[in-house]
């Protein structure tokens, strides 16, 4: 459906309650059959959600110990309360927790600042580079901060680092691979095809295994590369292959006439790509690339198999505390809630970007 940005005059003249009644009459109770169906569905929804709501909030044990939880009939939110620090920060030393916390705050602040396309500039890239350096120092120590090994990083900061760094860095790689795959130079083309198909053809777990088990075997004795870094490289390699295919879809959607017009004006290949083709292609692929990004964010939970403690792993570990056995539903719900917030915000932001970039098409109609 195509909507025009015009306001419906009827809507504004009606008071809110009246408008709601009208809406309900039109959409829920328009015929006898619809009325029956609507009532039936509303009753069903109430039936399902009342017990969940009661369990989660009304009957919940908010504070207290495990014994108090076991007496109560609702959710044991005290468990989340008790394990919150461990789930979020993992095995990071307790007295240093302000460091990952500060890193996360800085990251969210920078993300918030970066969300306006008008602020996208070289300066912003420098800010991000600065953040990566600062974040690295904060997390791992140095400059007077006690060193903390990356093996004891964990929880939400680890998930965020692995996924956001993975997604951001793999995006340019993905673009390069997609362009390479469409290249007319047979060597470049076949290299890109081989890379993409090879990486896409294996599960991410196998790449992570290779990075943690196989790769060190090829290094000379005494040389070791940080496990987290190896996992991060494996994740970047993996996401790049997927992003490449997403971007290729966008490139294929650009009409031949755009290339011809750019050629006819004398623009060279890189100018054509940078100014004409990629801006249009990347705009087209916002929805599928966010789809891939959301998938990848959740896939980072696979690093558990190489003993890195991301958000899901720390949640699982908290469930094993003998004192607090039996509250796995609460634990998993909490982890799911955080994942949902992250993924939902990404999706929501992507929709905003789509609207923002949607210009120049007839009369600024927006097609969502």
């Amino acid at each position, binding site marked *: 459906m195509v909507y025009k940005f015009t306001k419906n005059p009827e809507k504004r003249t009606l008071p809110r309650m009246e408008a709601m009644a009208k809406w309900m009459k039109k959409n829920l109770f328009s015929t006898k059959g619809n009325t029956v169906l609507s009532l039936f569905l509303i009753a069903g929804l109430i039936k399902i959600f009342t017990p969940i709501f009661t369990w989660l909030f009304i009957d919940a044990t908010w504070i207290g110990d495990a014994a108090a939880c076991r007496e109560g009939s609702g959710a044991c939110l005290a468990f989340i309360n008790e394990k919150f620090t461990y789930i979020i920060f993992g095995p990071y030393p307790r007295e240093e927790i302000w460091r990952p916390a500060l890193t996360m705050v800085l990251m969210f602040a920078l993300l918030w600042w970066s969300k306006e396309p008008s602020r996208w500039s070289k300066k912003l890239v420098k800010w991000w580079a600065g953040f990566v350096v600062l974040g690295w120092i904060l997390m791992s120590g140095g400059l007077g901060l006690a060193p903390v090994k990356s093996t004891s990083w964990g929880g939400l900061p680890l998930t965020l680092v692995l996924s956001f760094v993975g997604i951001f860095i793999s995006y340019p790689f993905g673009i390069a691979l997609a362009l390479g795959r469409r290249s007319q130079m047979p060597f470049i083309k076949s290299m890109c095809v081989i890379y993409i198909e090879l990486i896409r053809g294996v599960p991410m777990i196998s790449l992570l295994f290779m990075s943690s088990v196989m790769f060190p075997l090829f290094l000379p004795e005494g040389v070791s590369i940080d496990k987290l870094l190896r996992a991060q490289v494996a994740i970047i390699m993996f996401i790049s292959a997927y992003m490449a295919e997403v971007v290729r879809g966008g490139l294929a959607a650009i009409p031949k006439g755009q290339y*011809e017009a750019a050629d*006819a*004006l*004398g*623009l060279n290949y890189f100018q054509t790509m940078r*100014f004409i083709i990629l801006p249009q292609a990347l705009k087209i692929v916002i929805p599928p690339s966010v789809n891939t990004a959301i998938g990848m964010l959740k896939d980072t939970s696979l690093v558990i198999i190489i003993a890195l403690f991301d958000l899901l792993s720390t949640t699982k570990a908290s469930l094993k505390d003998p004192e607090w056995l039996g509250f796995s539903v609460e634990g998993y719900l909490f982890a799911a809630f955080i994942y949902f917030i992250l993924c939902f915000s990404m999706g929501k932001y992507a929709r905003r970007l789509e609207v923002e970039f949607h210009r120049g098409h007839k009369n600024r109609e927006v097609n969502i």
Partner: protein
Amino acid sequence: MSTNPIIEMKDMNKWFDDFHVLKNINFQVNNGEKIVICGPSGSGKSTLIRCINRLEVHQNGKIIVDGTELTNNLKHIEKIRAEVGMCFQHFNLFPHLSIVDNLALAPMWVRKESKKEASERAMHFLEKVKIADQALKYPGQLSGGQQQRVAIARALCMKPKIMLFDEPTSALDPEMVKEVLDVMVSLAEEGMTMLCVTHEMGFARQVADRVVFMDDGQIVEEAKPDEFFDNPQHERSKEFLSQILH
């Protein structure tokens, strides 16, 4: 005629796979000359002009544009493309850029002009095609005729020596054809070398120095417009004219 042609094709041949689309073309255009190329669809007329800026690659024979031979040499191709402007049937404006940015992009990056310089000339040519008030809009907000005029202005911003028109009015609604033809006529009056693939016979009579009739990949007849329209020599030209003039 002058002995110094700006475009020269010698025994030029082109195939699309096994299909022989241009057969042994020998053809010259002099500086400042206006040529209208017509012929039935599939006769190779678009392909012929697209070979001049190498949107299509010819397989043998020679094409020399302004003293530079078209080969696989990228430097030569870029040089020729910067000097040869082109307008397409479907305009091919860049939908994500505003009108003025559509015009200023190539001068800035190909001619290395400053943004100010490029935008000023963009505005100059938009004035010329009578569309300067739309400069900040996007292509999708303009009518077909306006878009084609923008496309002409975009090509002119590169200060081309030669302009190629590939059926510039075929995709337009009838009431918009005139505004585009008017721009082309005024361009011709200024002495631009022009090659137009078009079926606008009124335009051909008014502007062309020479009409080239193509059929089946060959140049069948070349003549001054009056001679061609009033007294076509070749059987196929006669047949074609009887079909389009009713």
